[in-house]
């Protein structure tokens, strides 16, 4: 088994603490738990896009936003299963070195959306080490609520691109019925972006 401490972080409390000023970011959440948590946290603010499929898309989409909007800060929230499906993107991010991209991986070590089946990070795989190995310059792992203030500082004070692996307890994300119509969400986001 991997040398991970058991996490004591409740995922539902994470994002509001990590991002005290969500309005300063363009936010993007990958499918499943991170989408629900972030939709509930911001009440589906118009600076947030949440995905419901296209597993693996989140970090790549965030990178596209970061490159096309270099004056804005982009924060991507993704799960461990989602990230592993397109984990080569960490190398792409490290080659491009966008100085406005923050990635938070909510790592519960399982595929929560499909019934909580164990994932690789519940065994021997360490996504923070993979990000480091890919060449992402700023990498941090947390697994206890005591570490969240330091992680919040990490997300603003370290050189980007940065990667935070937040090991969280197993358990359901925030219950929230969000808008599943991505075409509508895209237009809302684009209008808000143009106006900002």
């Amino acid at each position, binding site marked *: 088994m991997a040398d991970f401490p058991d996490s004591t972080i409740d995922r539902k409390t994470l994002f509001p603490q990590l991002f005290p000023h969500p309005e300063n970011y363009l936010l993007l959440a990958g499918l499943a738990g991170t989408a629900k948590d972030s939709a509930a946290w911001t009440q589906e603010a118009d600076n947030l896009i949440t995905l419901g499929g296209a597993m693996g898309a989140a970090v790549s989409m965030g*990178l596209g936003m970061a*490159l*096309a*909007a270099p004056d804005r800060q982009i924060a991507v929230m993704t799960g461990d299963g989602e990230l592993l499906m397109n984990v*080569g993107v960490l190398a*792409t991010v490290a*080659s491009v070195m966008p100085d406005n991209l923050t990635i938070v991986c909510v790592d519960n070590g399982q595929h929560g959306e499909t019934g909580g089946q164990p994932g690789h990070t519940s065994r021997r795989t360490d996504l923070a080490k993979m990000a480091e190995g890919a060449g992402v310059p700023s990498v941090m792992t947390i697994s206890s609520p005591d570490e969240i203030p330091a992680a919040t500082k990490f997300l603003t004070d370290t050189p980007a691109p940065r990667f935070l692996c937040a090991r969280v307890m197993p358990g359901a994300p925030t219950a929230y019925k969000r808008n599943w119509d991505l075409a509508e969400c*895209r237009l809302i986001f*684009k209008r808000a972006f*143009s106006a900002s």
Partner: protein
Amino acid sequence: MAREDWSKLIFDKLAGAGVTLFSYVPDFGNASLVEMADEDNRTRTVLLSSEQEGVALCAGADLVGGRGVLLMQSSGVGNVPNMLSLIQSGRFPMLMIVTMRGEYGEQNPWQYPMGQAVVPVLEAMGIQCIRVERDDELDQAVESAISASYVAGQGVALILTQKFFGAKAF
């Protein structure tokens, strides 16, 4: 038509249409286009680990008013179908340029399975395919691809065939 010449035609039209991000997985067929995008100060290239990243990258750029393109070999089309859910669900504009292997003149048997599946796979995911087989088709094909994708918001693949740019000899 020499590769540098048709690449220049495509590059000029894309850059002229405001495409700034050229994401790619390297291929003999897109090498000159990538060089041009590297050298021009209006555009930048993004080397991808897998073609699927490019679909999401172009969608992300669109969210903030940018334009990206995805360049890949035909074999890479097999890596993108589920990511194209994003394009259909969100009605994102999408332009990919596929340089073909596994057809007319191909000597490598490994290239045929995916090469022959390119158009059915893309069409099954709602991507319209524009094939270029002759030099005199290129100009209008590129214009059509740009209009359909960035202007009309469709998912489009410009398919540059081996009949058009020649098969690799082994």
